[in-house]
Protein backbone atom coordinates (compact mmCIF):
# COMPACT_ATOMS: atom_id res chain seq x y z
CA UNK A 1 0.00 0.00 0.00
CA UNK A 2 2.82 2.37 0.92
CA UNK A 3 4.45 1.82 -2.45
CA UNK A 4 1.18 2.71 -4.15
CA UNK A 5 1.16 6.07 -2.35
CA UNK A 6 4.59 6.88 -3.82
CA UNK A 7 3.18 6.03 -7.23
CA UNK A 8 0.32 8.46 -6.62
CA UNK A 9 2.65 11.23 -5.43
CA UNK A 10 4.62 10.62 -8.63
CA UNK A 11 1.48 11.18 -10.69
CA UNK A 12 0.90 14.41 -8.78
CA UNK A 13 4.46 15.51 -9.53
CA UNK A 14 4.07 14.73 -13.24
CA UNK A 15 0.95 16.88 -13.40
CA UNK A 16 2.45 19.72 -11.32
CA UNK A 17 5.66 19.75 -13.36
CA UNK A 18 3.61 19.98 -16.55
CA UNK A 19 1.14 22.63 -15.44
CA UNK A 20 3.85 24.81 -13.88
CA UNK A 21 5.74 24.38 -17.18
CA UNK A 22 9.07 23.54 -15.53
CA UNK A 23 9.38 20.64 -17.98
CA UNK A 24 9.50 23.01 -20.94
CA UNK A 25 12.83 23.31 -22.74
CA UNK A 26 11.76 26.84 -23.66
CA UNK A 27 11.12 27.80 -20.03
CA UNK A 28 14.60 26.59 -19.03
CA UNK A 29 16.21 28.44 -21.92
CA UNK A 30 14.29 31.59 -21.01
CA UNK A 31 15.36 31.20 -17.37
CA UNK A 32 19.07 30.99 -18.21
CA UNK A 33 18.65 34.05 -20.43
CA UNK A 34 17.00 35.93 -17.54
CA UNK A 35 14.09 36.91 -19.77
CA UNK A 36 11.24 35.87 -17.52
CA UNK A 37 10.50 35.59 -13.83
CA UNK A 38 8.41 32.44 -14.24
CA UNK A 39 10.98 29.73 -13.39
CA UNK A 40 12.46 31.81 -10.58
CA UNK A 41 8.94 32.24 -9.23
CA UNK A 42 8.16 28.52 -9.34
CA UNK A 43 11.45 27.35 -7.83
CA UNK A 44 11.75 30.29 -5.42
CA UNK A 45 8.23 29.91 -4.05
CA UNK A 46 8.62 26.12 -3.86
CA UNK A 47 11.74 26.64 -1.73
CA UNK A 48 10.07 29.26 0.48
CA UNK A 49 7.02 27.03 1.05
CA UNK A 50 9.38 24.08 1.54
CA UNK A 51 11.38 25.91 4.22
CA UNK A 52 8.16 26.85 6.06
CA UNK A 53 6.79 23.30 5.79
CA UNK A 54 9.98 21.70 7.09
CA UNK A 55 10.29 24.22 9.93
CA UNK A 56 6.73 23.45 11.01
CA UNK A 57 7.29 19.70 10.72
CA UNK A 58 10.43 19.93 12.88
CA UNK A 59 9.17 22.44 15.47
CA UNK A 60 5.66 21.16 16.20
CA UNK A 61 6.69 18.39 15.44
CA UNK A 62 4.70 16.73 12.67
CA UNK A 63 5.97 13.17 12.67
CA UNK A 64 6.12 10.93 9.64
CA UNK A 65 3.55 8.22 9.03
CA UNK A 66 5.87 5.86 10.94
CA UNK A 67 5.89 8.18 13.94
CA UNK A 68 9.46 9.35 13.32
CA UNK A 69 10.81 12.88 13.58
CA UNK A 70 11.88 14.58 10.35
CA UNK A 71 15.68 14.47 10.24
CA UNK A 72 17.69 15.58 7.21
CA UNK A 73 20.71 13.41 6.52
CA UNK A 74 23.38 16.11 6.07
CA UNK A 75 25.71 15.62 3.12
CA UNK A 76 29.46 15.98 3.76
CA UNK A 77 30.77 19.44 2.85
CA UNK A 78 32.57 18.77 -0.42
CA UNK A 79 32.69 22.08 -2.25
CA UNK A 80 34.46 20.80 -5.38
CA UNK A 81 31.97 18.00 -5.76
CA UNK A 82 28.95 20.30 -5.54
CA UNK A 83 30.43 23.00 -7.78
CA UNK A 84 31.96 20.81 -10.50
CA UNK A 85 29.28 18.13 -10.46
CA UNK A 86 26.60 20.81 -10.28
CA UNK A 87 28.09 22.66 -13.26
CA UNK A 88 28.20 19.49 -15.35
CA UNK A 89 24.56 18.82 -14.53
CA UNK A 90 23.73 22.46 -15.28
CA UNK A 91 25.22 22.14 -18.76
CA UNK A 92 23.06 19.10 -19.43
CA UNK A 93 20.02 20.92 -18.04
CA UNK A 94 20.66 23.89 -20.34
CA UNK A 95 21.11 21.61 -23.35
CA UNK A 96 18.23 19.17 -23.04
CA UNK A 97 16.04 21.58 -21.06
CA UNK A 98 15.01 19.02 -18.48
CA UNK A 99 16.34 17.92 -15.12
CA UNK A 100 15.68 14.31 -14.03
CA UNK A 101 12.03 14.66 -12.89
CA UNK A 102 10.95 16.48 -16.06
CA UNK A 103 12.80 13.90 -18.21
CA UNK A 104 10.38 11.23 -17.02
CA UNK A 105 7.44 13.62 -17.28
CA UNK A 106 8.36 14.43 -20.89
CA UNK A 107 8.59 10.72 -21.66
CA UNK A 108 5.05 10.34 -20.30
CA UNK A 109 3.99 13.21 -22.57
CA UNK A 110 5.04 11.10 -25.53
CA UNK A 111 8.30 12.87 -26.35
CA UNK A 112 9.94 9.50 -26.90
CA UNK A 113 13.38 11.00 -27.53
CA UNK A 114 13.55 11.28 -23.75
CA UNK A 115 13.89 7.51 -23.72
CA UNK A 116 17.30 8.15 -25.31
CA UNK A 117 18.03 10.96 -22.84
CA UNK A 118 17.21 8.76 -19.83
CA UNK A 119 19.27 5.81 -21.05
CA UNK A 120 22.15 8.20 -21.62
CA UNK A 121 21.70 9.61 -18.12
CA UNK A 122 21.95 6.09 -16.70
CA UNK A 123 25.17 5.62 -18.69
CA UNK A 124 26.40 8.95 -17.28
CA UNK A 125 25.66 7.76 -13.74
CA UNK A 126 27.49 4.52 -14.50
CA UNK A 127 30.58 6.33 -15.77
CA UNK A 128 30.56 8.50 -12.64
CA UNK A 129 30.38 5.41 -10.44
CA UNK A 130 33.23 3.83 -12.40
CA UNK A 131 35.66 6.77 -12.25
CA UNK A 132 34.61 8.58 -9.07
CA UNK A 133 37.82 7.67 -7.25
CA UNK A 134 39.78 9.69 -9.80
CA UNK A 135 37.60 12.80 -9.59
CA UNK A 136 38.11 15.73 -7.20
CA UNK A 137 35.40 15.78 -4.51
Amino acid at each position, binding site marked *: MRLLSFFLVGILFGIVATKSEVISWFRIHEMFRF*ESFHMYGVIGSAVVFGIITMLIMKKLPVKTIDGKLVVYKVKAMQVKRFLIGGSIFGMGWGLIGACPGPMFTMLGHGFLIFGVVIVSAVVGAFVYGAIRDYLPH
Partner: protein
Amino acid sequence: MIEFISQPWHWAVGGVFLALVSFLLTWLGRMFGISSIFRNICAMVGAGDRFSYFKVNLKEERWRLLFVFGIIVGGYIAAHYLASPEPVAISPKTVAHLQEWNIDAREGDGFLPVSIFNFSNPYGILLAVLGGFLVGFGTRYADGCTSGHAMTGLSHLQVQSFIAVIGFFIGGLIMTWILLPILIG
Protein backbone atom coordinates in the same frame (compact mmCIF):
# COMPACT_ATOMS: atom_id res chain seq x y z
CA MET B 1 -12.89 21.45 -12.74
CA ILE B 2 -10.80 19.83 -15.48
CA GLU B 3 -10.92 23.06 -17.45
CA PHE B 4 -9.83 24.98 -14.38
CA ILE B 5 -6.79 22.74 -13.86
CA SER B 6 -6.02 22.78 -17.58
CA GLN B 7 -5.09 26.46 -17.61
CA PRO B 8 -1.37 27.20 -17.31
CA TRP B 9 -0.72 27.61 -13.59
CA HIS B 10 0.56 30.77 -11.96
CA TRP B 11 4.14 30.28 -10.76
CA ALA B 12 3.11 30.49 -7.10
CA VAL B 13 0.57 27.69 -7.59
CA GLY B 14 3.33 25.58 -9.11
CA GLY B 15 5.55 26.41 -6.13
CA VAL B 16 2.88 25.44 -3.59
CA PHE B 17 2.23 22.11 -5.27
CA LEU B 18 5.94 21.29 -5.61
CA ALA B 19 6.26 21.96 -1.88
CA LEU B 20 3.23 19.70 -1.36
CA VAL B 21 4.98 16.87 -3.24
CA SER B 22 8.03 17.41 -1.04
CA PHE B 23 5.85 17.40 2.10
CA LEU B 24 4.01 14.22 1.12
CA LEU B 25 7.25 12.33 0.49
CA THR B 26 8.68 13.57 3.80
CA TRP B 27 5.49 12.58 5.62
CA LEU B 28 5.74 9.14 4.00
CA GLY B 29 9.21 8.85 5.52
CA ARG B 30 11.36 9.66 2.47
CA MET B 31 13.08 12.72 1.03
CA PHE B 32 12.26 14.23 -2.36
CA GLY B 33 15.03 13.31 -4.79
CA ILE B 34 14.92 11.86 -8.27
CA SER B 35 18.42 11.53 -9.75
CA SER B 36 19.32 8.58 -7.47
CA ILE B 37 17.11 6.57 -9.81
CA PHE B 38 19.95 6.55 -12.37
CA ARG B 39 22.27 4.97 -9.82
CA ASN B 40 19.58 2.48 -8.83
CA ILE B 41 19.02 1.40 -12.43
CA CYS B 42 22.77 0.71 -12.72
CA ALA B 43 22.55 -1.28 -9.49
CA MET B 44 19.55 -3.24 -10.80
CA VAL B 45 21.47 -4.41 -13.84
CA GLY B 46 24.36 -5.59 -11.69
CA ALA B 47 26.87 -2.70 -11.72
CA GLY B 48 27.38 -3.30 -7.99
CA ASP B 49 29.43 -6.38 -8.82
CA ARG B 50 32.12 -4.19 -10.36
CA PHE B 51 31.90 -0.83 -8.61
CA SER B 52 31.14 -0.29 -4.95
CA TYR B 53 29.22 2.93 -5.72
CA PHE B 54 26.43 0.76 -7.08
CA LYS B 55 26.10 -1.44 -4.01
CA VAL B 56 22.66 -0.11 -3.16
CA ASN B 57 20.00 -1.58 -0.89
CA LEU B 58 17.44 -1.83 -3.68
CA LYS B 59 14.66 -2.87 -1.34
CA GLU B 60 15.03 0.51 0.39
CA GLU B 61 14.87 2.19 -3.02
CA ARG B 62 11.72 0.54 -4.36
CA TRP B 63 9.68 3.60 -3.41
CA ARG B 64 11.72 5.76 -5.81
CA LEU B 65 11.06 3.39 -8.67
CA LEU B 66 7.33 3.57 -8.00
CA PHE B 67 7.57 7.35 -7.66
CA VAL B 68 9.29 7.62 -11.05
CA PHE B 69 6.71 5.31 -12.69
CA GLY B 70 4.10 7.65 -11.26
CA ILE B 71 5.87 10.64 -12.80
CA ILE B 72 5.70 9.05 -16.26
CA VAL B 73 1.99 8.31 -15.81
CA GLY B 74 1.43 11.83 -14.44
CA GLY B 75 3.08 13.24 -17.55
CA TYR B 76 0.79 11.11 -19.71
CA ILE B 77 -2.32 12.25 -17.83
CA ALA B 78 -1.28 15.89 -17.94
CA ALA B 79 -0.59 15.74 -21.68
CA HIS B 80 -3.76 13.89 -22.62
CA TYR B 81 -6.38 15.19 -20.21
CA LEU B 82 -5.08 18.43 -18.71
CA ALA B 83 -3.26 20.06 -21.62
CA SER B 84 -3.36 23.85 -21.86
CA PRO B 85 -5.25 25.19 -24.86
CA GLU B 86 -2.22 27.21 -26.02
CA PRO B 87 1.51 26.40 -26.28
CA VAL B 88 3.69 27.46 -23.32
CA ALA B 89 3.83 31.26 -23.52
CA ILE B 90 7.44 32.28 -23.02
CA SER B 91 8.79 35.80 -23.08
CA PRO B 92 8.59 37.64 -26.45
CA LYS B 93 12.32 38.38 -26.07
CA THR B 94 13.14 34.67 -25.92
CA VAL B 95 10.77 34.02 -28.85
CA ALA B 96 12.60 36.62 -30.97
CA HIS B 97 16.02 35.28 -29.98
CA LEU B 98 15.03 31.71 -30.89
CA GLN B 99 13.74 32.87 -34.27
CA GLU B 100 17.30 33.86 -35.08
CA TRP B 101 18.20 30.22 -34.47
CA ASN B 102 15.26 29.11 -36.68
CA ILE B 103 13.46 27.67 -33.68
CA ASP B 104 9.73 28.30 -33.32
CA ALA B 105 8.79 28.72 -29.66
CA ARG B 106 5.47 26.91 -30.32
CA GLU B 107 7.23 23.67 -31.28
CA GLY B 108 6.11 20.63 -29.32
CA ASP B 109 3.32 22.70 -27.72
CA GLY B 110 6.03 24.93 -26.31
CA PHE B 111 7.64 22.04 -24.44
CA LEU B 112 10.46 20.98 -26.76
CA PRO B 113 12.12 22.20 -29.97
CA VAL B 114 11.15 19.05 -31.84
CA SER B 115 12.72 20.38 -35.04
CA ILE B 116 16.04 19.55 -33.35
CA PHE B 117 15.19 16.76 -30.92
CA ASN B 118 13.54 14.14 -33.11
CA PHE B 119 14.43 10.63 -34.22
CA SER B 120 14.96 11.54 -37.87
CA ASN B 121 17.67 14.05 -36.99
CA PRO B 122 20.90 12.20 -36.11
CA TYR B 123 22.43 15.43 -34.81
CA GLY B 124 19.45 15.96 -32.51
CA ILE B 125 19.81 12.40 -31.19
CA LEU B 126 23.48 13.11 -30.55
CA LEU B 127 22.57 16.23 -28.56
CA ALA B 128 19.97 14.22 -26.62
CA VAL B 129 22.64 11.64 -25.78
CA LEU B 130 25.06 14.37 -24.73
CA GLY B 131 22.46 16.20 -22.63
CA GLY B 132 21.34 13.02 -20.89
CA PHE B 133 24.91 11.98 -20.18
CA LEU B 134 25.80 15.35 -18.63
CA VAL B 135 22.69 15.23 -16.44
CA GLY B 136 23.29 11.64 -15.28
CA PHE B 137 27.01 12.14 -14.66
CA GLY B 138 26.62 15.61 -13.15
CA THR B 139 23.76 14.81 -10.77
CA ARG B 140 25.58 11.80 -9.36
CA TYR B 141 28.81 13.78 -9.08
CA ALA B 142 26.95 16.58 -7.29
CA ASP B 143 24.98 14.04 -5.23
CA GLY B 144 21.63 15.49 -6.20
CA CYS B 145 19.64 17.44 -8.76
CA THR B 146 16.97 20.12 -8.74
CA SER B 147 14.78 18.02 -6.44
CA GLY B 148 17.39 16.69 -4.02
CA HIS B 149 19.40 19.92 -3.75
CA ALA B 150 17.29 22.88 -4.91
CA MET B 151 14.07 21.63 -3.31
CA THR B 152 14.92 19.30 -0.43
CA GLY B 153 18.36 20.62 0.50
CA LEU B 154 17.39 24.29 0.41
CA SER B 155 14.16 23.53 2.30
CA HIS B 156 16.41 22.17 5.06
CA LEU B 157 18.65 25.26 4.80
CA GLN B 158 21.69 23.33 3.60
CA VAL B 159 24.74 25.36 2.50
CA GLN B 160 25.91 22.27 0.58
CA SER B 161 22.81 22.42 -1.59
CA PHE B 162 23.17 26.16 -2.07
CA ILE B 163 26.67 25.57 -3.47
CA ALA B 164 25.29 22.85 -5.73
CA VAL B 165 22.56 25.18 -7.02
CA ILE B 166 25.23 27.80 -7.80
CA GLY B 167 26.96 25.05 -9.77
CA PHE B 168 23.72 24.26 -11.63
CA PHE B 169 23.57 27.90 -12.72
CA ILE B 170 27.22 28.14 -13.69
CA GLY B 171 26.76 25.13 -15.96
CA GLY B 172 23.42 26.32 -17.31
CA LEU B 173 24.79 29.76 -18.15
CA ILE B 174 27.87 28.29 -19.87
CA MET B 175 25.61 26.06 -21.96
CA THR B 176 23.02 28.72 -22.79
CA TRP B 177 25.37 31.61 -23.59
CA ILE B 178 28.54 29.95 -24.89
CA LEU B 179 27.90 26.39 -26.05
CA LEU B 180 24.31 26.43 -27.37
CA PRO B 181 25.05 29.24 -29.86
CA ILE B 182 27.73 26.95 -31.30
CA LEU B 183 25.72 23.73 -31.05
CA ILE B 184 22.32 24.89 -32.36
CA GLY B 185 22.63 28.65 -32.98
